[in-house]
């Protein structure tokens, strides 16, 4: 019986422990679970306010639908274009990959501009009432995520400019990590849109 073999490399090991697989995507996914819980806390607060804190009679809190619908479309399309970019990278077509990445980044920035336009046209400000504060906190926190995501997309866009660069068909991790993050941010937006604008 050699169950406790201290220095016997001939045992049942096919892979030595230091040659373990690549678990970086697992870490990204776990981090996104934590990030989702932050949003869950915000949503829970918003829904509780809705349930137990009625708006004051004189408070102004009205949302228009056209811009947020445009925003939803922008983000959903950007998820699809990011997926396209990933496909192209796997085919080692860096040029097409970069084009799709740029389209995604532009869509993300368009979302941010559209969000800004909405902010400036809304009839209420951050401290006007409870709902207004929660609206800006939630959309602002999400907008921060979109901003970071757009920056990361541009970084990946830069890093895969040559076939021998940092992001290639052989090292897709940076692109895959940002892609997962981007889909996550889009998913959060859909939930946010449903709760904040439609509920």
């Amino acid at each position, binding site marked *: 019986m050699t169950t406790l073999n201290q220095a016997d490399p001939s045992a049942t090991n096919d892979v030595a422990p230091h040659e373990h697989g690549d678990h970086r995507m697992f870490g990204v996914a776990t981090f996104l*679970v934590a*990030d989702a819980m932050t949003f869950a806390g915000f949503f829970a607060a918003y829904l509780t306010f809705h349930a137990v804190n009625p708006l004051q009679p004189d408070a102004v809190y009205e949302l228009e639908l056209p811009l947020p619908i445009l925003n939803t479309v922008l983000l959903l399309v950007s998820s699809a274009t990011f997926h396209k970019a990933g496909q192209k990278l796997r085919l080692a077509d860096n040029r097409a990959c970069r084009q799709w990445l740029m389209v995604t980044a532009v869509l993300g920035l368009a979302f941010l501009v559209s969000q800004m336009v909405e902010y400036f046209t809304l009839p209420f400000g951050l401290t006007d009432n409870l709902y207004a504060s929660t609206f800006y906190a939630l959309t602002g926190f999400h907008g921060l995520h979109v901003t970071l995501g757009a920056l990361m997309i541009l970084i990946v866009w830069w890093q895969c400019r040559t076939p021998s660069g940092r992001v290639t068909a052989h090292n897709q991790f940076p692109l895959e990590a940002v892609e997962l993050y981007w889909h996550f941010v889009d998913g959060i937006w859909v939930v946010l849109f449903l709760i904040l604008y439609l509920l």
Partner: protein
Amino acid sequence: MTVSLPPQSEQHTPSLQPTGWLRYFSFSVDHKVIGLQYLVCGFLFYLIGGALAGAIRTELASPMSDFMPRDVYNQVLTLHGTVMIFLWIVPVVNGAFGNYLIPFYVGARDMAYPRLNAVAFWLIPPAGLLLISSYFITGAAQSGWTAYPPLSITTPASGQMIWILSVLLLGGSSIFGGINFIATVLKLRRPGLKLMQLPMYCWAMLGTSILVVLSTPVLAGTLILLSFDIVAHTGFFNPGLGGNVVVYQHLFWFYSHPAVYIMVLPAFGLVSEILPVHCRKPLFGYATMVYSIMAIVVLGLVVWAHHMFTSGTPPWMRLFFTIATAFIAVPTGIKFFNWLATLWGGRISLNSAVLFSCGFIVNFVLGGITGVALAQVPFDVHVHDTYFVVAHFHYIVYGGTVFVIFASIYHWYPKVTGRMLNEPIGRLHFLLTFIGFNLCFAPQHWLGLNGMPRRVAEYDPQFAFINQISSVGALLMAISTLPFLWNVVASAFNGEIAGDNPWKALTPEWLTSSPPPVENWVGEAPLVEEPYGYGVPIDQIDLKATSGRDLWSSGK
């Protein structure tokens, strides 16, 4: 700066890590170095938090506010709570022992994300210095470690904001650590090692890390909203502006009740490692231990509102959270009886590690019983925010977790340093700590039942005598640190040489040299399928010849 080569493994590229004592001050990615960084850094904060506790007990030795001004008392109690929870217990019982032991237990050379690991540690010293410096710059936060609004909105803003920033940094550190532990336990196991063969501490850390990842972000979000209330004058938690303070309490306790399990579950795991070694018996009820840890994780997420029975909670909520909280007693009781059964009939060596573990079991049962009592609404409404709660809480986190931290230091010190601690001094340390702790906190049950509120600098003179007893206990606890410090420092230089496996233990960290080499093992990691396979007289164990199961059955 010198470059160290991992011993005897030529296929590795050399890593740019300093060697010698310098590496403990560097951005080292070695999990053992990071574990010790957590431990020593946490212990320094423990001394600071202990000094703050001493100030509190000195103030409370007399009914009048004569030792320090009232607002300073509020700052001191806020800092004491925050330092002890976020800078001592959480980093040490998770970060220190988790980083040191988990890679050994799963048969890995390091954690899954070594650099993230170093980042997680190095967030702690700045956050701690930030927190403590706030006292000297503008005055620290005064609203307790719970930072309930509207109190936290109306007390001076700068101290409260520094407190929030510091806790956000520490929360980030905790989340990064949690991600790392989950990935290491689930993904980095040595080939052939099954989940149900892992030492119990791995399960405890897996459960703890799930709680960390699910609940800490909610606290972060809540504190961001609170900081908006303080800085931007929004009204999330400000009733004057249409907000709702109870929402803060819900969100806060959604983290802070699981935080109790984040502090105590790893301690459960560590005790489950220590007891079998020194009793020479297998851990009793391995599978039930695993299931009860996971049950505590699930239940721990749905009991938070039992902290809020006096916050106008509706009856259905009181009913639900009372029942859910009472349920937690079941898995916890299973673990308690498993430890007793592990001790039962064992060849117990009553050294310092076992004494502290047994002290833990005694204290934790007392704290657990008062916990079940506090979960009952009629009783909780009576003693809410009294010293009864203070006593209960300290029986869990000090009598429970800190006792286990000391037990673990006595148990793993030979592995970390290669030298034994002085046993008589260790027993003296245990005696002083156990007597001091119980003298300090047992009388506080009486104080609470008789109506002394917590967090006050002045109280009714009828409570003076009992408070003085409690303060004497605190003094004993402070004195008990001295033999420990002397022991730890002196033994590092003059202690008896321990050898690789002084306890003749079977868990994997003992199957390498003391202290272990940079990548944990020379050659392959051992495959330990029976980490608790004890059962024959100590001198008859042949570690190389038999499997754990053989040892256990031949002992009958």
